[in-house]
C-alpha cells in the first residue's frame, strides 16, 4: 500500500487508502499500471479512478477553461473531471473517464489538457483572468481589426481548445455491428432492473438485460443495504446468476444502451475488450448492437448532484454516494478527515459509512434539520451544523479545509481532506427523452422525472429512474414492469425481498451564500468540466439569456463530455431562482443521444478502409486482373480502365492502341455493369411506350431500339436500348449508374400508376455477363463464338438486331447488334458464370483477327467520337432538347415527363445544347469543366455560355475533341469560342462542330 502527503499542513504522514476488500474487487491479485509515467498497483475489479485513489492520487485532471486542478467527483459514467488519455499511439483514447476505465496489466494513462504537468499547469493563469473570461465574453470582443480573428485571436483560442488528443494513426482495432430482437429490453442491472428481468424471464419471454457496468448490482454495490438479511450486492449476484442460467435471457455487461430510436430500436454499445490489454485474436474491441425490443424497462437509477458553493471543485470534494461506492465496492478510503455536506437524507448514509470504515467525520453540514443527523452526530462524534452551508474551501491541489457557515451566519473553518457532498438525486431519464418526451419536475424530489407515458406505451420506467426513491419501491416497480411487459399477470407471484425501507427527503439548496455576485469568496461551479459558475448563470440571465436553451448555449453549460449529468438540475434551479420562476416554468432541455459518449469506430463497425463499401466485380474481373488491367471505381463497380501491354509507358498510349484496335480490327469490353431488366407480358409494349419518350408500338421481334426516359418533371432520367426477344418478352438496358433507380422507377410506374398493365419484370444485371465485341473484324470473331446454325450475315442479323442464340456449342446466350463505339459491333450475353470463359474464348478465337480487350477509357473515347451522351451529359439537369434529341419526343402518346417537358423553359433554344468542340490547335487539351465564352469576351459570368462536359484525345480524328453544352449551340457550328479554365489560368480556343466526330453517316455500324 502506498500513501500520500496530506497537503496543506506541511506534515508528512503515510496513510493507507485501501481499507479492506471491496465487494467488486479481487484483492488476491495485483495489477501494475502507470499514470503520467508513474507506476502504481491495483487489483482486478478496480477502475483507474479507484486504483489511483487507493494510491493516494487525488489530482487527476485540469478543467477546460480555467485549468483548475480537479480530482474525482464521482465513481461512475457521470464523471466531469477525471478524464484521461488511455493507452498510447494509435490506440490512444482521449477523454476517457477514469471512473469507468477498468485497469489491466500494463495500462498506460496520462492526464490531459495541461502543460507542462498536472501539478503545475501554465494555463492555470486563465484563472487569474477569470474576471474577464465570463460567460460569452468572446462575443463582445476580438472583433478589431477584422482580419485578426483568423490570424491572431482564433489561433490562440484553438491552442487552448479541446481536452485530449485524438490518436495519431488509424485505429488498430476492429469493431462490429449486430442486430438482436427481444420481447423485453431491460436497461440497468440494479435492484429494479434485475427484478424486472427476473419477472419477465420467468414468464418465458425473450429478455435482454444490459448493464453498462462490469458488474451487476447498481447502487447495491455501493451500499451496506441488506436484502433478505444478506448484503445487497450478493442478492444482485444471485439474481444475475439465476438469469444467466435461463435460455431466454441474454445478459450483456459493459453494455450501455446509448439511444432509443423510433420503432423500439435501441443502440447498445458493448465494450467487449476494453478491460483487457488488447482484443482477443479476431475479436472486436467494441460491438454495436441494434436491439429491437417490444418493450423496454428503463432501470437506469439516478445521478447524484453536487451542491454549488464557492470553490466546490477542489480535489477531495466528492459526491457522497460515490464516496460510499469507493468504500464498499473498491475498499478505498477517499480521505481521512471528512466533512459531509448534504441537503437530503440519503447523503447522511455517507456519515455512517465513513465512520464504519474508520474515517473521522469531523463535521456534518445539513441544509435542513433532521433527527437522523442528530443521531449520527452523536454516534460518530461529528459536529453537526444544521441549516448550514459550506461557504468556502481551501487547498491548492486538494481540499485542506472547509468554511462552514452555520444557521446564524457564523463561519467555522474546519480542516479536512474530504468533503462528501450530496445535493440530492436526479433520476437518469435520458433514454425516456430521446423521443422528444419532456420530463416533469417534482418538487418533493427536487428533480425531473419522466412524464406519465413518456416515450410511448412500450417504455416502462422503474426504480429511481422513475422517481421511486426507496429500495422496496425499486423492487416493486421492477417486478411489476417485468410482469406487465411479459403479458403475464404477476400480481399473485410477486414476492418482494425483505429490505429496510428508508424514506428519502430533501431540502433543496441550489446555491449557497457567496455564489452570485457578492461576496466574492471564489468560483462556485455548476458545470465542472466547462467551468460554468453560478456567476456565469447570473450574468447570462442578466443579459437576457433566460430561456433554458439560451442559457445553455451562452454559457456552454451541459455541453462538456459529461453532458451536464451532474450540472443540469442545479443550473435550472438557479436560473429559476434568478428569474423568479418555478423550476417547472423554467423547463428543461431535452437530453440528446447518446446517453454516454460512443466511439465513432463502433458506429462505423467493419465499414472502413477497403471495406467501407462492398465491391461489385464484373464477371470477367479475375481474367482482367490476369491481363494486368488497371481498374477504376465506378460506383460500387470496379471496372477495367485499360489493359497495358509491355512496353507501353503511358496510359494514353494504351488507350490509343485500344481505340485503334477497335477502329481497325476488333476489340471487346465487359459491359455487364449496365443495368439489365427482363420484361415479360402482353402489355410490355404499352408499358415501354409510357416509360420512354419514343414509340415502341412498331418494334418487331428480334430488334432493339434506343430509348430515352424522362423524369416526370421533364428532364432526362436515363437512356439505353431495349430489345424485343419474343412476342411478349423484352430486355431493357440502363446506364450503369442508374440501374437501381430505373428498376425502382419501373416498379413505381407499374405498381402505383398502371397496375392494370399485365407486365412482369425483374433485374437481371447480375445474372448475365455481357460483352461488347466491336470493330470491323467483329463478325468474323462472332462466327467463331456463335454456333454455326445461326446466320450472322448483315442481311439476316443487321444493325439493331437481337436474338436468343447458342454459343460455344450449345450454351444459351443473347446476341445484340448494338454499337456504342460506332463500329460494326455486337453485344453478347451469357449466364454470368460463363463470363470469364467467354472472355478467354474471345481472346483465343479473336487472335487471328487481332483482337484485344479494351477498357472503360477507350470505351469513353469512342463514345465521345460518336457523340453519344453519357454520365456527364445525362447529369439530371439536361433536357431531351439539350441533348439534341427533342425530335424523339412522341406527340402521340402519354409518357412519363411529357407534359412537363413541353414547357417553354425546357425547350428554350437559348439553353446550352449539346455540340462537339475541337481545339484550334489539335494538341491543345480540352479540359472537362472548362467554360465556353464568346471569343474576346471578358471572363465574367455574364458572358458564360456553356461548358465542356466530356473530352478526350481522339486517335481517330488526330485531335483533342470534346462534347459540350453551348447556348444556341446547333446554330453556331463553325463558330470559334473561347475555352476558359480559370482554375488552371488558361484560355484556349475551340471551334464548334457536330457532336459526331467519326463516321457521321453511320456506315461502319451498318456494315
Amino acid at each position: 500500500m502506498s500513501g500520500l502527503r496530506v497537503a496543506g499542513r506541511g506534515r508528512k504522514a503515510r496513510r493507507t487508502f485501501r481499507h479492506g476488500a471491496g465487494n467488486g474487487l479481487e484483492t488476491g491479485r495485483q495489477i501494475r499500471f502507470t499514470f503520467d509515467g508513474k507506476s502504481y498497483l491495483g487489483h482486478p475489479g478496480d477502475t483507474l479512478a479507484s486504483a489511483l485513489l487507493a494510491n493516494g492520487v487525488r489530482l487527476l485532471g485540469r478543467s477546460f477553461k480555467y485549468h483548475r486542478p480537479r480530482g474525482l467527483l464521482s465513481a461512475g459514467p457521470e464523471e466531469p473531471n477525471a478524464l484521461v488519455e488511455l493507452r498510447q499511439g494509435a490506440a490512444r483514447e482521449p477523454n476517457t473517464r477514469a471512473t469507468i476505465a477498468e485497469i489491466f496489466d500494463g495500462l498506460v494513462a496520462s492526464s490531459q489538457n495541461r502543460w507542462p504537468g498536472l501539478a503545475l499547469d501554465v494555463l492555470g493563469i486563465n484563472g487569474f483572468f477569470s474576471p474577464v473570461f465570463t460567460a460569452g465574453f468572446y462575443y463582445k470582443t476580438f472583433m478589431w481589426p477584422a482580419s485578426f480573428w483568423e490570424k491572431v485571436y482564433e489561433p490562440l483560442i484553438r491552442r487552448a481548445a479541446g481536452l485530449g488528443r485524438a490518436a495519431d494513426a488509424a485505429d488498430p482495432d476492429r469493431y462490429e455491428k449486430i442486430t438482436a430482437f427481444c420481447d423485453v429490453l431491460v436497461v440497468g442491472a440494479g435492484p429494479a432492473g434485475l427484478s424486472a428481468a427476473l419477472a419477465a424471464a420467468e414468464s418465458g419471454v425473450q429478455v435482454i438485460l444490459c448493464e453498462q457496468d462490469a458488474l451487476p448490482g447498481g447502487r447495491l454495490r455501493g451500499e451496506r443495504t441488506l436484502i433478505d438479511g444478506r448484503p445487497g450486492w450478493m442478492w444482485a449476484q444471485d439474481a444475475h446468476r439465476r438469469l444467466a442460467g435461463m435460455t431466454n435471457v441474454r445478459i450483456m455487461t459493459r453494455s450501455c444502451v446509448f439511444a432509443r430510436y423510433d420503432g423500439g430500436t435501441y443502440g447498445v454499445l458493448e465494450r467487449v475488450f476494453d478491460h483487457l490489454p488488447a482484443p482477443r485474436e479476431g475479436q472486436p474491441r467494441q460491438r454495436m448492437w441494434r436491439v429491437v425490443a417490444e418493450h423496454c424497462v428503463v432501470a437506469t437509477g439516478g445521478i447524484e448532484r453536487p451542491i454549488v458553493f464557492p470553490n466546490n471543485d477542489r480535489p477531495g470534494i466528492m459526491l457522497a454516494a460515490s464516496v460510499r461506492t469507493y468504500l464498499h465496492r473498491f475498499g478505498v478510503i477517499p480521505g481521512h478527515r471528512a466533512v459531509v455536506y448534504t441537503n437530503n437524507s440519503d447523503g447522511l448514509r455517507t456519515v455512517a459509512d465513513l465512520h464504519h470504515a474508520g474515517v473521522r467525520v469531523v463535521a456534518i453540514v445539513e441544509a435542513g434539520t433532521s433527527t437522523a443527523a442528530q443521531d449520527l452526530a452523536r454516534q460518530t462524534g461529528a459536529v453537526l451544523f444544521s441549516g448550514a452551508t459550506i461557504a468556502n474551501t481551501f487547498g491548492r491541489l486538494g481540499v485542506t479545509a472547509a468554511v462552514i457557515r452555520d444557521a446564524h451566519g457564523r463561519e467555522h473553518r474546519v480542516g479536512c481532506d474530504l468533503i462528501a457532498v450530496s445535493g440530492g438525486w436526479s433520476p437518469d431519464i435520458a433514454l425516456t427523452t430521446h423521443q422528444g418526451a419532456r420530463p416533469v419536475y417534482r418538487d418533493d424530489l427536487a428533480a425531473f422525472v419522466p412524464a406519465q407515458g413518456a416515450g410511448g406505451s412500450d417504455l416502462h420506467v422503474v426504480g429511481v429512474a422513475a422517481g421511486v426513491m426507496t429500495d422496496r419501491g425499486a423492487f416493486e416497480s421492477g417486478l411489476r414492469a417485468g410482469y406487465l411487459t411479459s403479458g403475464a399477470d404477476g400480481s399473485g407471484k410477486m414476492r418482494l425481498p425483505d429490505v429496510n425501507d428508508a424514506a428519502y427527503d430533501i431540502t433543496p439548496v441550489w446555491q449557497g451564500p457567496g455564489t452570485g455576485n457578492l461576496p466574492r469568496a471564489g468560483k462556485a461551479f455548476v458545470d465542472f468540466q466547462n467551468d460554468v459558475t453560478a456567476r456565469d448563470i447570473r450574468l447570462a440571465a442578466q443579459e437576457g439569456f433566460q430561456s433554458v436553451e439560451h442559457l445553455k448555449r451562452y454559457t456552454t453549460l451541459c455541453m462538456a463530455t459529461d453532458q451536464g449529468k451532474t450540472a443540469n438540475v442545479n443550473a435550472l434551479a438557479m436560473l429559476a431562482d434568478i428569474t423568479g420562476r418555478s423550476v417547472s416554468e423554467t423547463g428543461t432541455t431535452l437530453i440528446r443521444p447518446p446517453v454516454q459518449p460512443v466511439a465513432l469506430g463502433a458506429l462505423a463497425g467493419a465499414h472502413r478502409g477497403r471495406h467501407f463499401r462492398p465491391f461489385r466485380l464484373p464477371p470477367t474481373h479475375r481474367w482482367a486482373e490476369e491481363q494486368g488491367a488497371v481498374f477504376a471505381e465506378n460506383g460500387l463497380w470496379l471496372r477495367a480502365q485499360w489493359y497495358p501491354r509491355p512496353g507501353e509507358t503511358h496510359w494514353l498510349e494504351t488507350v490509343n492502341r485500344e481505340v485503334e484496335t477497335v477502329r481497325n480490327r476488333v476489340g471487346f469490353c465487359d459491359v455487364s455493369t449496365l443495368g439489365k431488366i427482363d420484361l415479360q407480358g402482353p402489355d410490355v409494349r404499352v408499358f415501354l411506350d409510357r416509360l420512354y419518350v419514343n414509340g415502341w408500338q412498331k418494334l418487331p421481334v428480334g430488334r432493339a431500339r434506343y430509348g430515352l426516359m424522362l423524369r416526370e418533371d421533364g428532364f432526362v432520367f436515363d437512356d439505353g436500348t431495349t430489345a424485343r426477344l419474343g412476342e411478349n418478352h423484352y430486355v431493357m438496358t440502363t446506364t450503369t449508374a442508374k440501374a437501381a433507380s430505373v428498376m425502382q422507377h419501373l416498379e413505381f410506374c407499374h405498381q402505383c400508376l398502371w397496375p392494370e398493365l399485365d407486365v412482369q419484370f425483374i433485374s437481371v444485371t447480375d445474372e448475365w455477363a455481357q460483352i461488347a465485341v466491336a470493330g470491323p473484324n467483329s463478325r468474323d470473331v462472332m462466327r467463331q463464338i456463335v454456333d454455326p446454325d445461326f446466320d450472322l450475315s448483315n442481311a439476316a442479323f443487321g444493325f439493331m438486331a437481337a436474338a436468343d442464340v447458342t454459343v460455344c456449342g450449345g450454351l444459351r446466350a443473347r446476341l445484340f447488334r448494338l454499337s456504342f463505339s460506332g463500329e460494326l459491333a455486337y453485344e453478347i450475353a451469357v449466364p454470368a458464370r460463363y463470363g470469364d470463359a467467354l472472355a478467354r474464348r474471345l481472346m483465343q478465337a479473336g487472335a487471328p483477327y487481332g483482337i484485344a480487350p479494351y477498357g472503360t477509357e477507350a470505351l469513353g473515347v469512342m463514345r465521345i467520337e460518336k457523340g453519344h451522351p453519357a454520365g456527364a451529359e445525362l447529369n439530371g439537369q439536361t433536357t431531351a432538347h439539350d441533348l439534341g434529341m427533342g425530335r424523339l419526343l412522341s406527340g402521340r402518346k402519354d409518357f412519363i415527363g411529357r407534359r412537363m417537358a413541353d414547357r417553354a423553359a425546357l425547350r428554350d433554344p437559348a439553353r446550352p445544347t449539346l455540340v462537339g468542340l475541337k481545339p484550334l490547335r489539335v494538341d491543345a487539351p480540352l479540359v472537362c469543366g472548362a467554360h465556353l465564352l464568346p471569343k474576346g469576351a471578358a471572363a465574367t459570368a455574364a458572358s458564360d455560355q456553356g461548358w465542356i462536359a466530356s473530352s478526350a484525345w481522339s486517335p481517330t480524328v488526330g485531335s483533342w475533341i470534346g462534347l459540350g453544352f453551348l447556348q444556341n449551340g446547333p446554330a453556331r457550328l463553325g463558330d470559334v469560342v473561347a475555352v476558359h479554365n480559370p482554375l488552371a489560368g488558361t484560355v484556349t480556343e475551340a471551334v464548334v462542330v457536330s457532336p459526331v466526330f467519326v463516321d457521321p453517316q453511320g456506315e461502319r455500324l451498318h456494315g
Partner: protein
Amino acid sequence: MRLTCPHCGSRGLEEFSYRGDATVQRPALEAPEEDWVAYVYLRDNPCGAHRELWYHGAGCRAWLVVERDTLTHVVHNVRAVCREETP
C-alpha cells in the same frame, strides 16, 4: 424506425426507400397544366398524419402506402399499393 411490410414482416428502415406523399394523383395527359404542376411540385407536407409511399427495395420490391405521423414517427398502417383502393 421500422415498417411492417405486408409481404416480409417487420423490417428496419434501411431496407426501404422513400418517395413522398401518396395522396397526389397523376393527372390525365390532357389535364390543365396547373394540375400537372401541382402533381409534380406541390405538397401538403402536414405535421401529423401523413400517407406516403415507400419502396421495399431490399426486400420484396413492393411499393407500400404507409400511414405515419410526421411528428412522432409512429407508423399506423402499412399496405401494399397494389391493394390500395383508388379513391
